[in-house]
């Protein structure tokens, strides 16, 4: 018991054991959605309760936790979840990707490559990649069991037929270990290639839908495509306005009411690291000066 009156990392040990069993099953069957008895958490459904339960089940006292939302450590929900674990588990937290042993994320994979010593926990709103083609769970489970994925290919093909390209820009479906089609959670498709053969363990928690799934380290993750329409990721004509990076996912910030825009790294830690190392973008003051202004 910590001083909060709750067990370490909030959940009781029986519940953690139940979740760990689901995680073990998920790791054993990459990409398969394991139903688990998700608990009501003190944070709202849809705000990361699945990721929080997975994190609570795997976190230890000597872990260092990083929490990001949209790639940033300082978005309000990331702050809220990080505080939750500070309060209930008393663990060290960090904003540095490399310093974290456990990273909980919503909508992004950090730009800096992850290692075998790290676990990445994704918050998942809709775990079922076939949901938009088939609303019924009893049907989609059968389709997965029978590897009956024709509808997914038809859906992607229809995009090409109607629009000349696949218009899915996030939560872009992948095939894991050559078997299950999996929803990567609403990360931009820019991040999909990072999932393939990632050295870190990737765990996915969907609290409201009560599903856990996983991609074990060094497992193949292939974004679905066609020979004549190969998978491609987003690109921008300019780099980050602050750090000049041309290899990172960029967010668009509106800077005036006359159509002015600037593009900045969505991964705030990556951007700061680059600026600290002396990289400058076209709209950036030198790093030391911005730090002093804080």
């Amino acid at each position, binding site marked *: 018991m910590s001083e909060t009156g709750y067990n370490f990392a909030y959940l009781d040990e029986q519940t953690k054991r139940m979740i760990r069993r689901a995680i073990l099953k998920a790791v054993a069957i990459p990409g398969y959605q394991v139903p688990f008895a998700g608990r009501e958490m003190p944070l709202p459904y849809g705000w990361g309760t699945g990721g929080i339960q997975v994190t609570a089940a795997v976190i230890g006292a000597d872990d260092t936790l990083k929490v990001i939302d949209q790639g940033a450590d300082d978005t309000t929900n990331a702050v809220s979840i990080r505080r939750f674990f500070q309060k209930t588990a008393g663990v060290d937290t960090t904003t540095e990707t490399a310093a974290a042993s456990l990273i909980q994320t919503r909508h992004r994979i950090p730009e800096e490559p992850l290692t075998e010593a790290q676990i990445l926990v994704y918050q998942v709103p809709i775990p079922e990649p076939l949901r938009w083609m088939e609303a019924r769970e009893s049907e989609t489970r059968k389709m997965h069991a029978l590897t009956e994925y024709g509808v997914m290919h038809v859906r992607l093909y229809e995009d090409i037929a109607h629009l000349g390209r696949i218009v899915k820009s996030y939560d872009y479906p992948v095939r894991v270990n050559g078997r299950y089609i999996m929803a990567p959670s609403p990360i931009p498709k820019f991040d999909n290639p990072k999932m393939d053969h990632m050295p870190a363990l990737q765990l996915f928690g969907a609290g409201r839908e009560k599903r856990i799934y996983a991609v074990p380290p060094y497992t193949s993750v292939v974004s679905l495509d066609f020979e004549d329409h190969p998978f491609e990721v987003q690109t921008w004509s300019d780099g980050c306005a602050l750090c000049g990076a041309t290899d990172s*996912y960029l967010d668009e910030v509106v800077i005036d009411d006359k159509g002015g825009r600037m593009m900045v790294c969505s991964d705030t830690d990556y951007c700061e690291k680059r600026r600290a190392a002396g990289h400058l973008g076209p709209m950036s003051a030198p790093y030391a000066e911005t730090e002093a202004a804080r």
Partner: protein
Amino acid sequence: MYVAVKGGEKAIDNAHALLAEERRGDPAVPELSIAQIKEQMTLAVDRVMSEGSLYDADLAALALKQARGDAVEAIFLLRAYRTTLPRFAASLPVDTAKMTINRRISATFKDLPGGQVLGPTFDYTHRLLDFSLMADAAEAPRAAAAPADDAAMPRVVDILNHEGLIEADSAPADAEPGDLTREPLTFPAGRDLRLQNLARGDEGFVLALAYSSQRGFGNNHPFAGEIRLGGVEVEIVPEELGFPIVIGEAELTECHMITQFTGSKTQPPQFTRGYGLTFGRNERKAMAMAIVDRSLRAGEFDEERRFPAQDEEFVLGHSDNVEASGFLQHLKLPHYVDFQGELVNVRALRAEAETVR
């Protein structure tokens, strides 16, 4: 020059402080006590206990106070507390035939053993604002008390059962009921899980579904066989004793809806049941639940499933207001990353459309 905004932590602290201040309202007005909410906002407390799945009026009142009267938020608070509680026993099934009756009415028989007991109901009040309630009452209203009636009050469905006119209770007495707060819900769900889901389900949602089936989006012509309200004893069998002991009394509202059924190849014509149960006093919810329960049993009676109220995945998947409220409101969270992906997409599609033109 642009400096990335770093205000998340401070903004959250300030927002919490502002919320606390607004919850209290004008400090010149005396603060509400938990006892006041529990005693005078009883139906709100009952709803929070029912959908919060926790029979504790003090905590439900606290949740309502903390939630500034927002029922769904209070239900969420109670659920999040409940999930941390250890399970030290499961009660025996409560016997509502032995209920100490506060109210009991049947719309199917003019009179019946035990009689009709109107009890405390809004039903025949004229909905005129009572302006006298705006002032502090000089004296608390009192109702005349009748001596307790010890006459047995058998349940209407049991009376019908003597003639075999109504289907027998479907669940075997020794069946272990499921618990969707401990096991993931899978489809098809059993009636036990459906009833648990409906009992926890949002009152407005269940009401609307029941109403839809009454209006023709369903095939349900129910009679209110019986509605009863009162206290039941809750018993557990502690392992070290081996016999049941009473651990307390719970107030419940129970509804049996009776629906005509013309028979199928395997079943004779008879009446069928729909069942509703809530903590405390909530007839509207209990009646709606009973109608939706019967609608969801369409498959058992070879009825064609054509409407939302008959569709188990639709009803059970969307009845929970804590889930629904959370997911709906998560749209307030930042989505810049996804939106950026869509911006890239739409710009590319527009550029292509331009060149084609």
